[in-house]
Every structure is written in C-alpha cells, then in structure tokens.
C-alpha cells in the first residue's frame, strides 16, 4: 500500500503525464511457449509448401524448355542395310527433306560425329567403320511452321525404306505428361500443407481461447463485442503466421538458391548436360520466387482467417 498521503485527492495537473503508458500489450495473454511452437509448425509447413511450389514451377519451366528444344526439331534415322548403299539413302532423304515446306535447315550428321556419339557405350579404339551404325539427319523447323508430316512420312518410307521419321511428338507428350504430374503433385502438396497449417492454427486458437476464458469474460463485461475480441486474437495469430511464414519462405528461397548453386557448380562436371537436360538450368526464376512468396503470404492469411473463424465459433458457444 502506498503512504496514506496518497489517499488525499491530488491536484491532477501538477505532474506531467507519462508519455508512454501503454505497452501495446495484446488484450489476450500470449502463451509464449505455445506461440513459439505454433510459429515453428507454421514455418516448417510453409517451407515444405514453398519447396513444392518451387518444384512445380521448376518442372513447368523445364518442360517448357524441353518442348521448345525438342519440338522445333525432327530427325530421320537411316538404318544400315547390307543390300543398299547407306550414303545414297542419306542423300536421297536429305533431298526429300529439303523439298518439304517449313523446313529451315537439314543436316546429315557426319559418320564421324555419330560414331563419336557411340563412343561412351562402345569405347574408343574400336573401328566403327565396319559396324552397321545408323545415320541421323536433323531437320530444323522454321519457327511456327507445321510441315505436313502425315504425307511426308509415308512418302519418305516409299523412297527410302530404311528411313524412320521421328517428329519427337511421343517424347513431347510423355515429357508434358510427366511435367503435368509433377506440377499437379506440387499443387496437391501445397493444398495439403495449407490445410495442415489451418488445422494447426485452429487447434492453437482453441487452446489460447480456453486458456484465456477468464480474460474473454472480463472483456465481455467491460463492453467488448465479439468483433473486438476476435480481432484481438486474430491480430496475434496473423503476426505469428506472418513470422512463421516469412521464416519458412526465406528458408525455402535459401534452399532453392543453394540447389541452384550446386547445380551450376556441377555443370563443370561431365554429368552436367544430363542434369541440365532434366532440370533446365535449375533456375526457378521470378515466377518461382513469387510462388514461394505467395505461399508464405497465403499461410499468414490463413492463420488470421482461421483464428478469426475459430474465435467467433468459440464466442458463439460461450453465449
């Protein structure tokens, strides 16, 4: 108890008012342990969701690159046949291809080059001149052109029975299907993770509400309406969600950048070409980083929204 002197009414204007009275405390008590645990859960979930979103963007970009690279090319393969001269067949096929509409260039891969392609499998030192090795002709399409393959294929076969036309369409289709699967899975994983985040926030909010039942009751008595109380809880969970989402998002961006760095580091190694072929340059680009950011923001928004709904539900139950 302060001294009795204080009981007498004081002249109110004598002392200057303290400047900073309010510590801007939230009206509902903050359970730091539970709060931190929830933030960690949100950070981890955001990290996972952001990674799968990044992977989906990566797959989308890579598949675009494949399609671009693969679909503006066709190849003709000439199989060796002991009854025919392979050089003549190559020359005839090249001539026919050059006559086709929409073809920019035709190049017969020289024998030395195609032999080199086989080296990794057969080793050096083997004289491939003796071996019946198929020959390749690469047709570059003019951008946007659609040559009449349906007619050209059979015509080519008639003239050169050893020729096989490959317009890579099967490949493109398979790659697209694969890429779509990856993108779809990424999407599903993001949805699942967002659902998990929502549930975690709902449970945490319930816990917090049950823990501050007394405070909520007092707030009601001093004239707070449900809106006000819901806002108090919501702002707290949005803050938690924002912090957790930011931490998870930043971690995901760092992880993706690190993988990109590793990929570029490996690209000096011989396996690089295969890696590049599969993942593109392992660059998710701005779209990827935007997706990661979006995930983090959505997580924070969900935290706020779910806590609000949970609080309102709970307050209705109390009434």
């Amino acid at each position, binding site marked *: *108890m302060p001294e009795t002197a204080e009981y007498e009414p004081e002249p109110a204007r004598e002392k200057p008012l303290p400047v900073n009275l309010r510590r801007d*405390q939230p009206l509902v008590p903050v359970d730091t342990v539970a709060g931190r645990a929830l933030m960690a859960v949100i950070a981890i979930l955001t990290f996972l969701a952001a990674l799968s979103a990044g992977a989906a963007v990566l797959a989308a970009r890579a598949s675009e690159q494949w399609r671009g690279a693969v679909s503006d090319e066709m190849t003709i393969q000439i199989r060796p046949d002991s009854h025919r001269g392979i050089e003549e067949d190559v020359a005839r096929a090249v001539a026919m291809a050059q006559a086709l509409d929409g073809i920019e260039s035709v190049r017969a891969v020289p024998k030395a080059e195609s032999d080199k392609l086989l080296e990794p499998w057969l080793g050096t030192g083997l004289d491939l001149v003796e071996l019946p090795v198929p020959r390749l002709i690469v047709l570059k399409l003019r951008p946007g052109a659609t040559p009449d393959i349906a007619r050209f294929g059979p015509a080519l076969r008639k003239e050169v029975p050893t020729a096989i036309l490959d317009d890579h369409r099967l490949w493109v289709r398979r790659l697209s299907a694969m890429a779509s699967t990856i993108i779809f899975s990424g999407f599903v994983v993001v949805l699942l993770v967002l659902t998990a985040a929502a549930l975690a926030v709902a449970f945490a909010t319930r816990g917090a509400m049950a823990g501050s039942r007394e405070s909520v009751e007092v707030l009601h008595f001093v004239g707070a309406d449900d809106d006000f109380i819901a806002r108090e809880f919501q702002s707290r969970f949005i803050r938690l969600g924002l912090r957790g989402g930011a931490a998870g998002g930043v971690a995901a961006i760092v992880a993706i950048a690190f993988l990109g760095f590793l990929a570029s580091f490996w690209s000096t190694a011989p396996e690089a070409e295969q890696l590049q072929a599969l993942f593109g340059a392992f660059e998710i680009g701005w779209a990827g980083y935007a997706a990661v950011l979006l995930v983090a923001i959505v997580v924070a928004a969900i935290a706020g929204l779910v806590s609000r709904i949970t609080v309102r539900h709970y307050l209705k139950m109390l009434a």
Partner: protein
Amino acid sequence: MVRFENVGLRYGMGPEVLKDINFSIEPRSFQYLTGPSGAGKTTLMRLILMALKPTRGLVNLFGQDVSRLDAPTLTAFRRRMGVVFQDFRLLDHLTVYENVALPLRVLGKEEASYRAEVVELLRWVGLGERMHAVPAVLSGGEKQRAAIARALIGRPELLLADEPTGNVDPGLGRRLLRLFMELQQLGTAVIIATHDLNLMDIYDAPRLVLADGHLHVDA
C-alpha cells in the same frame, strides 16, 4: 432501470439460491445490497450483468426484457454499466493503467484521447504511482481500487460494486463511499453489495436485504 419480477435462480440441479425476487432500481438511486455470506448477493449482481439467466421470472433492464436480447444490444447494455467484482477480475498481463483504460479501449477509442482522464482517475484513487505495475504485485486494496477505477472510467448509468470496501482500511473505505455518492449525484444509479454495517451507517440509503433466498427492502 432494473426490474426483477418473481425471479428465481438455481445453479444446475442445486437448491434455489434466489426465490421470488421482486425489486426495482430507479435511475440516480443509491442502495445497498446486503445479507449474510452465501445469501446470493453476487448471484443477484450476475443476473443484472446478464452473466446468468434466471431459472424463472422476468429480468427487465433499461426497459427491455433481457431474455430476448440480441448480441449488439447486450454489448450496448454492458457499456452502460460499470462493475466492481468481488474478486476484482483484473487482467494479469496488463498494467493497472491498461486495466483501467480497458472499457474505453474496447470502444475503439484512441489511446491519446483518454490518457489524461485515466491518469487523473488513477491519481484520485491513489494509484498514481502504481499505474505501471501489474496486478500480481499489487496489494489487495490496490487491486480493489484499480477495479473500482475500471468500473468508473466509462461513466456508467448503473454501477454494481460487490464488496468494494472489503480490502481497504476504514479511512479509504469512507473515501470510496464518498466517491460512489458523488457518482450518484452525477446521475449514476449505484448498488453496493456489502455486509459492512459500519459502512452502511456512514451514509443512510435503502437496503435490499437478502435472506434465505428472499429479498426485502429496508427503506
């Protein structure tokens, strides 16, 4: 302003704590609510606060039957009342200043608009030096004064004070009683629940006496 008609209340399956309660509180009136411990004073206050629903009978507040109030009206009614709980019910994680400012803060007012008012009231109840303390470190009497200040800050039309002088020395008790009387002069209806006979002798006012669940008025 408050009217009870044949109100009865029981907690769960227990006996009826209040039976056939009939009384009314006029605006700007001053009365004591008294009776032995366990008579149901706090229960009666909780009925007026709409924290309890009567098991039977009619509770009428500010001219409306409380059994069919919507949420916004209920909130509006609570804003017209100030209440001092017997167990104070201060929020533990807030300072005295924040606790007292609470009724204004929940109205959505800017902190700057009520700061001076809150500080003045805190000084008046002798908590000028303690406004940054949290309830956990306050003495019982200091908590009580903080609770009273919180009830007064919104200038309520109806003040319910449950044992507001139970934890203070007689000098401060008298001073607080004067504060309540001043409040009544300014237009607030005051109900003070107490079993402190000395207090009731200081200022003579009608007494609502609870005994055996029944209420009678000693004018």
